[in-house]
């Protein structure tokens, strides 16, 4: 048994590496709101760095962090808020000197295009006409945390939480509004922009702290050199042009 087990592990490892990323591949775990922008940036980076392939993994920042903490082999992590990156840093997954803010965003309230009632203020959402409001789950979705903090500051969290339809990522909240299954939803300005035909922005919600997305090479990155190149690439004019096209601001 003693000699058998390492051999078995070796066999498993060998069969896994056959499917695993090649030496020059990097895996980027990015906040769901960056989906379209990063899908456009990845081929630009690959063209500029022949031989390197970028694998993109999108989800709620909290869910991505949970994956990384459990040993997911990611090289670069982009979170939609500072809190999630702070947690990554506290757990030693990211070194303090490695993180930089890459883009800024804004929180907006959206309604379905065909909606009869359009709220003008946060307090309007307290009216009975808005029975279902999509909000990212504050425990794992940054946009939900931003939403909760502004609603708490306005003294509206308790009544609105009762009408909250929790979304697993900002994109799910967007989808619920686009399908008119909810009366309103909290998403980023950039998300509202990709579904202009199905949702309309009611108003922009001022946030006490600016919404800044931090990026970092992970301490356990399988390919730190290429990962650092990718992070640098995000600050070059071609990448900035793509980010600007999707409505992301400068940090």
């Amino acid at each position: 048994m003693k000699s058998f087990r390492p051999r078995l592990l070796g066999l498993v490892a060998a069969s896994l590496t056959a499917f695993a990323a090649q030496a020059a591949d990097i895996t980027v775990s990015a906040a769901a709101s960056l989906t379209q922008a990063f899908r456009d940036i990845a081929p630009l980076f690959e063209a500029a760095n022949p031989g390197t392939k970028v694998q993109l993994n999108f989800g709620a920042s909290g869910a991505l962090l949970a994956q990384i903490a459990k040993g997911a082999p990611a090289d670069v992590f982009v979170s939609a808020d500072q809190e999630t990156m702070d947690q990554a840093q506290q757990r030693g997954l990211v070194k303090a000197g490695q993180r930089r803010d890459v883009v800024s965003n804004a929180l907006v309230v959206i309604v379905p295009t065909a909606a009869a009632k359009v709220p003008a203020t946060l307090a309007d959402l307290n009216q009975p006409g808005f029975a279902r409001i999509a909000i990212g789950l504050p425990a794992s979705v940054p946009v939900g945390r931003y939403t909760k903090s502004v609603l708490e500051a306005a003294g509206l969290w308790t009544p609105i939480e009762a009408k909250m339809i929790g979304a697993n990522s900002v994109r799910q909240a967007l989808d619920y509004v686009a399908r008119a299954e909810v009366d309103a939803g909290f998403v980023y300005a950039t998300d509202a922009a990709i579904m202009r035909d199905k949702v309309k922005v009611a108003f922009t919600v001022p946030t006490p702290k600016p919404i800044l997305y931090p990026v970092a090479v992970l301490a356990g990155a399988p390919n730190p050199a290429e990962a650092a190149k990718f992070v640098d690439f995000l600050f070059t004019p071609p990448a900035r042009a793509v980010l600007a096209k999707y409505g992301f601001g400068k940090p």
Partner: protein
Amino acid sequence: MSGAWVALALTLKVAGWATALNLVLGVGVGFLMARCRFPGRELLDAALTLPMVMPPTVLGYYLLVVIGSHGIVGAWLLEHFGIRLIFTWQAAVIAATIVAFPLVFKAARAAFENVDPQLEDAARTLGISEAAVFFRVSLPLAWRGVLAGLLLSFARALGEFGATLMVAGSIAGKTQTLSIAVYEAVQAGQDDTAHFLVAVTSIVCVTVLLSAGRLVPGRVMARG
């Protein structure tokens, strides 16, 4: 952790309703498929089995398209009755019922096909109605297979995740079933909650399976 008991109660409610609906739907369709001969019967059988082999997310998506407030059924319900199904526990029941339906239907069809038609004919010669033939001869003889299918469908409904999440969402205390609560806890990095929920789920499943094992032979002996 009290949230876990709420999720457990909801999960049992959803799985219970789904199984009750499948008792009627699955047994009815299974009986008709076993007794009626028509062209394209096997094709229909394959189509009815689709919910079991299709990815639950695909099913969830099409359910959203059909029962969503813009969908054919959803728009009709909203217009005539003011009912919105999405994000309700009833939507979770619909999802679980459809996903688990083939398990009951398949088991019931096989069970009815194993019932000797001569026994049914003998009952008819004694002058009892078709309904009585079904309830007093066919169903009691097929009961064991039907019950096995129902238990499997209950277990399947307990663990249903993909389609449920898409049509019922994840509203704590309203539509958040055990499997969805586990997913949420893992996403939020709450490992303790996840472990606890998994323990609860395992205990429930083992209890169901054990009691099923005890119930089935006894019932068959009593009836058969």
